């Protein structure tokens, strides 16, 4: 394989793994902050216990997130030197903001958050918790600004092969950046909520097995996890519909500014004639070599309605773009199904939330009734990976759909590569890093399982 393909694999590999951890860091930091603030506000010890318990898992996600993020930052230079040299004056600038403005705040606050319980006042500690949340969110914001500028490089012009920034406001707040940041930030919260709710469900199932009547200790532990489950549910009610809305906004930005990507992710080959609507394909399979679909199950006019909010809105097809300027057929099929998977999961998570609310409303979320509704709790355990899968699928649509451009309509991916890379070296790096990443994921699951099994500390003195 050539260094270009290998470098793309290396970047995709490291990015796909790295994204899991900031996702959880942001979600857990928000939850911890809400709990600690509630504790200071109300004085109820149970909120403090919540904050302390989930911090243990947060520490793991943060450490692995930092560790897996380093290769990404270095890779812009090692594997994509031509891209970095050309775009550094904006892209590098934004990465500089990410490290100085966001990451330093997060790491320094984290030291106090983790080790400072007996060394600083409660208010300073709450502030450090907020610093972690703000730092992590700002980090996500600057990364999304950098990435959305690769999607829509506005406010710049090229001069002698280098980017000159003409308008910072236009470059930073391009039409994609705020919508995409919102979509991603909410994805962080949503994925983490379903992870946490799934962990609670798992702990409740474990706690119930073969133990009736309850001991006081087990009862306290189950009460802890049921409370956490309910808090997650409350946040999920607000978050899941917002995410659907942000997804719709995000889709319309793509439709307006990246029509090739939209056509590829919908496998739409021909532009709809004026006065007619473009259909939405639920499933589709293209002819060999592209040009049209061999088979498709379509809903009439639905794609026009989704992207333009009008039943006869124009949706450009892939055939109206030069073949060199659009994703390949294989890439298109891939993102077609990745997109549908993401949407499907979004709908399933809304349904699961409503189901949870119904169980709560009808009084079935109590310690005594856990063993009667095992199916319900197991459903939440199975849902643990869904949010993460949806996020990964969404990112694949976003990044693969941009091909063959590294900077949309400005620079091709092949032109961004470093000089004189050697395939065996890059292949070795991919092998080593992937092996390390797999080990880290395994260790995370192992340690998290142990943390949950040993349960929250409900007796130590308050700080």
């Amino acid at each position, binding site marked *: 394989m050539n260094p270009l393909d290998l470098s793309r694999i290396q970047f995709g590999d490291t990015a796909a793994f790295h994204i899991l951890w900031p996702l959880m860091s942001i979600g857990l930091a928000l939850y911890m902050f809400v709990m600690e603030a509630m504790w200071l506000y109300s004085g109820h010890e149970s909120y403090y216990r919540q904050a*302390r318990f989930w*911090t*243990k898992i947060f*520490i*793991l996600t943060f*450490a*692995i997130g930092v*560790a897996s993020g*380093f*290769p990404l*930052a*270095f890779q*812009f*230079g*090692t*594997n994509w*030197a*031509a891209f*970095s*040299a*050309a775009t*550094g*004056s904006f892209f*590098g*600038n*934004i*990465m*500089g*903001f990410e*490290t*100085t*403005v966001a*990451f*330093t*705040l997060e*790491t*320094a606050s*984290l*030291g*106090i958050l*983790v*080790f*400072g*319980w007996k*060394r600083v006042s409660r208010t300073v500690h709450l502030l450090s918790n907020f610093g972690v949340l703000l730092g992590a969110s700002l980090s996500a914001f600057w990364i999304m600004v950098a990435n959305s500028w690769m999607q829509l490089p506005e406010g710049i012009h090229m001069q002698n092969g280098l980017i*000159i*920034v003409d308008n910072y406001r236009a470059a930073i707040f391009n039409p994609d950046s705020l919508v995409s940041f919102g979509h991603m930030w909410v994805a962080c919260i949503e994925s983490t909520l379903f992870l946490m709710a799934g962990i609670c469900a798992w702990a409740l199932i474990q706690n119930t097995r073969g133990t009736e009547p309850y001991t006081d200790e087990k009862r306290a532990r189950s009460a802890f996890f049921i409370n956490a489950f309910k808090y997650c549910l409350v946040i999920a009610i607000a978050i899941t519909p917002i995410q659907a809305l942000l997804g719709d906004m995000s889709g319309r930005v793509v439709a307006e500014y990246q029509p090739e990507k939209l056509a590829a992710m919908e496998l739409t080959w021909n532009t709809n004639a004026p006065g007619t609507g473009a259909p939405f394909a639920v499933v589709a399979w293209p002819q060999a070599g592209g040009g049209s679909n061999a088979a498709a199950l379509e809903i009439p006019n639905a794609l026009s309605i989704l992207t333009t909010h009008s039943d006869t809105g124009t949706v450009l097809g892939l055939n109206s773009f030069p073949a060199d300027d659009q994703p390949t057929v294989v890439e298109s099929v891939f993102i077609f199904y990745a997109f549908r998977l993401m949407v499907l999961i979004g709908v399933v998570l809304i349904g699961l939330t409503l189901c949870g609310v119904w169980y709560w409303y009808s009084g079935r979320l109590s310690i005594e009734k856990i063993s009667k509704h095992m199916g319900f709790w197991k459903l939440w355990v199975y849902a643990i990976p869904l949010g993460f899968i949806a996020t990964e699928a969404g990112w694949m649509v976003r990044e693969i759909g941009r091909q063959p451009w590294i900077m949309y309509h400005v620079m091709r991916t092949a032109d961004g590569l*470093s*000089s*004189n*890379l*050697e395939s065996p*070296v890059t292949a070795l*790096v991919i092998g080593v*890093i992937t092996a*390390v990443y797999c080990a*880290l994921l395994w*260790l995370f699951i192992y*340690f998290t399982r*142990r943390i949950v099994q040993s349960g929250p500390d409900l007796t130590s003195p308050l700080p």
Partner: protein
Amino acid sequence: MSDSMLPLMWYFIICGELALYILLDGANLGIGLLSLLPQQESERSRMLDILGPIWNANETWLLVAAGTLFGAFPAVYAIGLNALYVPGMIIVVGIIGRAVAFEFHAYAVRKEIWSRIFGVASLLVVVGQGCALGGLLGGISIADGHFAGTLWDWATPLTLLMAVGIFCSYAVLGYTYLIREERYANKSGSFNRILTYAGLTGVALLLATLLLPRTNYLFFTRWSTPPSMYALYAIAVAIALIALWFGYDAVRAQHPERLYYQCLLLFAFGTAGMLVGTYPYLVPPSVTIFAAASPANTLRFMLWGIGPLLPIILAYNWYLHRIFRRQMPQETLTGYGE
């Protein structure tokens, strides 16, 4: 501020960030190297406990320097990492290992695995940094604004000496940091070991300085033509004399606190000497500060965005170090909720 001053301004900011990184994380990496020496497991655990709250904030300075370098001097970031692909990836793997070793050590039942990974990962980072610095000073071949050499150009005798020098100097820094800690019990004979490592550092860096003009033409010119050669010799002799004086003082006074700050000073002098020797080049002998700089409007925008934050970042890092400075030996940290 005039446009021509902006690249210089950023050059000094990035040098400052890198110097902070070396001074702060250098000690942490040095402690990692020392953890590889044969000793009791409880000593190793104590090393990790001492670093727990601060290592992450220290390491962040490397990311800060890299991020600002990317924005202010993108050509250097691109060409440098392209040429130093292999050392860069060694550093990355080391950093991954070190970052997770701390937290897994805290959670694990069999802690010795993780204290070992902490040591080995620190070693990888140190070796990678030595190779990168050697490769950079040895010269990177550039044609048409792109890296034009092979991925193995950095592997020279100069690089070997640099790696040895950095290894020993970090060990010195790690030791001097540790013996100030009341919780660190293994202090007997440490002054002698510090002096040994310091001597080895001196020898390795002296040999590297002698080899440098043969490897990179720029340094040959500078070290052999007046007036620059007089200035460089004067600086080298001055640093050597100060080092000897500090060494004498260390033997005589055996004062850990003073020794630590003397070491920091020496590191700062050494770094400053290297900067004087390479100015105005970022990648000697081909890329200067001014040739590699981003356009003035970018540098100005970055200065407004980042400049006011740097004092704030410094302030809360200082606050962090103050909170966790020299814990009492009997006090246990409650961070991981155990």
